């Protein structure tokens, strides 16, 4: 039966032609393993969507007037800073959605429900802007982001996603 599990040296090569297993069990095992590996290839980390969205947003919004009105372009520096900001938070909180704002900043938005959400605006400057909606209460502010995430951000995100 072990023969059915043999595979090529390349971990992403799903040609299990080397298997010598000929029993029904070996056949079933081989089929199930191939299915599992094929699913693994398609799977994306929970953070993948946000990172991809950030990439796509940057590519779509690099030109002036990208919104059909008078939006400023998103700069490479803003994109890098948003990536860095996201990297600090991505393992600790649910994944945000990313988009561009007409002032040329990138916005990360965490949404718990329709009226519980938190937004952070990041551009090339060291200062970020944030705003949150917590039911009938709203919050807003600014803080410096150079290396470490400002304390207000995890505070509000914890509040947003608390059970």
């Amino acid at each position, binding site marked *: 039966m072990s023969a059915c599990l043999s595979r090529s040296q390349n971990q992403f090569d799903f040609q299990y032609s080397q298997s010598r297993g000929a029993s029904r069990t070996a056949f079933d095992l081989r089929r199930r393993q191939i299915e599992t590996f094929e699913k693994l290839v398609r799977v994306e980390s929970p953070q993948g*969507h946000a990172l991809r*969205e950030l990439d796509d*947003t940057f590519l*779509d*919004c690099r*030109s*002036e*007037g*990208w*919104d*059909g*009105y*008078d*939006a400023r372009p998103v700069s490479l520096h803003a994109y890098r800073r948003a990536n860095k900001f996201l990297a600090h938070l991505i393992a600790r909180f649910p994944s945000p*959605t990313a*988009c*561009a*704002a*007409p*002032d040329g*900043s990138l*916005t990360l*938005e965490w*949404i718990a429900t*329709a*009226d519980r*959400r938190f*937004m952070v*605006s990041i551009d090339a*400057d060291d*200062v*970020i*802007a*944030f*705003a*949150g*909606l917590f039911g009938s209460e*709203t*919050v*807003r*502010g*600014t803080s410096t982001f150079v290396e470490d995430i400002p304390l207000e951000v995890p505070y509000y995100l914890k509040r947003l996603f608390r059970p």
Partner: protein
Amino acid sequence: MCTPIEDAEVLARYILSKSWLYLDNRPGNKLRSNAWLPHPRIELSVYRVDDWTPSEIDKKGEEVATERESNHRQSELGKGNDYPDGKRTFKYLGTGKIQAWDVRRSELDAVPKEPPCRHADIIGWPPLTQNRKQDVAAQMEYAMRLQRESHFVPPVE
């Protein structure tokens, strides 16, 4: 039609960029808060569509998109950039609709601003300060309020 805007009137924000929409399969409102951010003026451009049919709303949306596309094409060509004939950056993707009452409940206001015909502005945004980031934070807060009260309507086709 420069009559004052009644509380019950419906206002439409034309959506020309997919970056204003949530593109995943989330339930509920597809419109992002960013669609309601004012820029560069501290007024937000909307249309009074109360007695328009869905196809009239879409027709105006197509006009707005065509005008924006034409301006963008001229601008790109003016900069010496390549802009092939078939290329289209701005398409009419639908409208964000909100009732004037909900605008006012969000501590903003809606007033007629013509021309063009039926155009209006959402005004009353927090006054600009010397601190640009504080202004951004304040505008995001109000944009989230508008997003909460609005809904997205795709074109009828």
